[in-house]
């Protein structure tokens, strides 16, 4: 029974669908990068959309080429991307808060006021120290 199935056709269809969905996600997140109102929301859009899109595209590629080596490498790339991209996003966001990048005016900052005040006053001290040196 297994001989009657056209595996190449099935593989091509599955991998094409996965790659197309991945490309669509990446395109949408790039449009979001252009038209969202402030830095933090833009970064939310671009990092996650790109990560999911990359995962889908690589999975589709691994299925299409159909070799154990390829699948191993694809799995490793996806795993490391999922581990590292949130760390990068977190560091960029933290740096932006320290450098006083403004939030969108409709953002609810009630619970964040204390932290912002502390962080920015500490930052000001830091700048003053640098000037004295």
């Amino acid at each position, binding site marked *: 029974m*297994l001989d009657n199935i056209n*595996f190449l056709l099935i*593989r091509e269809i599955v991998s094409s669908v996965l790659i197309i969905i991945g490309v669509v*996600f990446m395109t*949408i*997140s790039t*449009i*979001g990068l252009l*038209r*969202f*109102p402030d830095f*933090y*929301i833009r*970064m*939310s*859009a671009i*990092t*996650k*959309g790109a*990560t*999911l899109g990359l995962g889908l595209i690589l999975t589709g590629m*691994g*299925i299409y080429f*159909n*070799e*154990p*080596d390829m*699948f*191993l490498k694809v*799995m490793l790339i996806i795993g490391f991307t*999922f*581990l590292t*991209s*949130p*760390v990068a*996003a*977190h560091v960029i*966001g*933290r740096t932006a*808060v320290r450098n006083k990048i403004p*939030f*969108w005016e*409709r*953002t*609810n*900052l*009630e*619970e*964040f006021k204390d*932290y912002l005040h502390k962080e920015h006053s500490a930052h000001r001290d830091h700048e003053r120290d640098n000037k004295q040196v």
Partner: protein
Amino acid sequence: MKTFIIHFLIAFIGSYLYFKYGDPMLPYNAFWAVVVAVFIMFVLWLTTPFYHRTYFHKLPRALNFIAYFLKELVVANLRVAYDILTPNYRMKPAVVAVPLSVTTDLEITLLANIITLTPGSLMIDISADRKLLYMHTLYVKDNDLESVKYHIKHGFERRLMQLTR
């Protein structure tokens, strides 16, 4: 956790070697490779009650956690995509301070990574005494910050604590 990583590596390398150097009865493709790896992990899981009793109960919860995370990932991505493609902004962003119940380094790192991977939420910082986690989130309905906190605490944190304790 250590047992899981060891079992995962054994299953991965086992199925890899089976298809590369063995004499496979199955045609090679991604589907059968995953089936063989899952089968090896299942056999290893059945042997665990003899030397690692808690792992026997934790694996179903881990699978549940992974399924929940993938569901959240796709749903949130679609929600952000919808907001990008329609002209008006439906989002109401806010910065929320979530009180943490997890304490160790590993748990906090995992929780923060998972929160940042879910679209629409971005972790900014942890307070110095490790009690609060500052999180930038889109989609707060009717300024109800408590529901966002409830969602994080009962969705991700509870499942994570079941796994690591």
